């Protein structure tokens, strides 16, 4: 059967620092690109704005902030992988509430460095 999907891209501008082997890194900024692949279930069309509002609402909590000061990254080391895993879960729930499925998630710190989760 043909699988029908949408791709969305979002951007998160924020600072973070990471802890590796008990060494606390410097605070530095990123522009992360987050690309979502969303599968259509049932209906023919997903109006773009519905998903966009859902995701932007969530990202707004972190925009232009220091991630390490905001839950859950106050206790969870905000590595690319941890950020990716956290948003995968949280976006999956938000998108499921609208009745659709998040199938792919990709977060990139540069166009040549990305972390991907798949269902």
């Amino acid at each position: 059967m043909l699988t029908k999907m949408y791709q969305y891209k979002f951007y998160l501008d924020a600072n973070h620092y990471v802890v590796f082997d008990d060494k606390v890194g410097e605070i530095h900024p990123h522009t992360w690109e987050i690309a979502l692949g969303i599968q259509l279930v049932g209906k023919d069309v997903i109006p773009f704005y519905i998903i966009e509002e859902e995701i932007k609402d969530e990202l707004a909590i972190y925009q232009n902030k220091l991630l390490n000061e905001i839950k859950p990254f106050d206790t969870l080391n905000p590595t690319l992988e941890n950020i990716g895993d956290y948003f995968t879960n949280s976006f999956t729930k938000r998108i499921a509430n609208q009745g659709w499925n998040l199938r792919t998630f990709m977060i990139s710190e540069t166009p040549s460095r990305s972390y991907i989760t798949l269902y």
Partner: protein
Amino acid sequence: MNQAMFTSEVFFWLSWILIPLLVEIIPSIGSAFLLMFKRFKQNKDPIPTLYPEISILIPVYNSANTLEACLNSIDKSTYDNELISVLLIDNGSKDNSYEVFQACQLKYDLSIQWLSSNQGKSKALNKGLFNANGKYIINVDSDGYFEANSITNMVNRFESDLNLHCLTGVILTDYKLIKKTKSFLLRQVRKLEYMEYCQAFLVGRNYNAANNSMFTISGAYSAFRKSTIMNTFLYNTNTICEDAHITYQIKAKKMNVGICENAIFYVEPIDDLNKLYVQRQRWQIGELEVFHMFKQGKLKVKNLMKDKIFSVLLFDHTFTFPRLIWFFALIALSIRNYPIMTVAYASFIIYALYVLTGILYYFSVRVYLNPFKADLKFYNHIFLYTLIYPLYNFYVFILRFMGIINSINRASSWKTFNFSDELEIMKNIIKNDFRIFKKSEDISNVNENVSI
């Protein structure tokens, strides 16, 4: 004349004339000849067999008045429209920039896309970088326009030298607007500013590029191989000087930064003296800020002079450091009741030497402007401004010096600022400027913080 007086006289002339002569004037004569020689040696870049696709990133912020001229110059450029993809990245415009974009999209046979971003130029540029697919990525400001051959010349240069990873174009102010300026005083300032841009790019940066010591590309017109910029951490969004920051990143990877001296981008001349005041301080503060970010924790006074970046910063085309020494020497001499006539003669000689190097620079600029007949004509017309250019230069130097003082004031709070914080900080800094020089207790505070 007795012995003591003779000795002090010799000492005076040595320190007064010799220092600027050695640290500034002789090197500048050398560099002027070197640049002329470089130009005569230079071959025309070969034309590539196949021109590549390129991306042009233009951050947009309330650009309704200037955007069309910018896009029009891309459309009219000699580079094939089919190979150009333009990305306009809006970062919070409140005017009708979007409508201008839509109108241009219909009008021009050119691929133009619109992206939205958080506020801040570097944030906008990062979004652009994620979406740029061209072999070369060109970043320009929305308030300027390309010279017709500019893009082609830039690509020719990249294609002919695989060791060039990043290039700055040449920024000149629009001579047509300078000519139209109504106010007499402002017109003079704008002509001097034009001369300054010519010198800053065609002499200053050109010379730095020849020595592989260029540490700031111009944010208003810069170009990268996509492969180069993908190797960086993108633009840093915590600084007001993201162009200097990305240059440092590229330099740190041992990649080459150059200038394409036949790729011109025209910008508007300065609005008024107040604007000049704010702009130059911003540049100086930004440069120091980036320097600080890269040097965090590693800065020791004894190593400072050995540091290439540091010396470029201080001895760049503004020659901040040597000027500083004898600017204060002048004050010290006046206080110590030195014969005023001697000081006056010496100042006159120094000034004459400055004019002389200015004229040399003038001619080395001229050989590079040669292919651009309209600019050359205007440049010929302002030749006599070389006589007063050192005064303008000194004024700009004072502004930059105040920028240094101000950056010392904010040194404790380097960390993270957003755009509106940044604006607020800039406003306060500039409000406080005169206070710093008036209040003695403020001066003592500054001194405490000087040990960077």
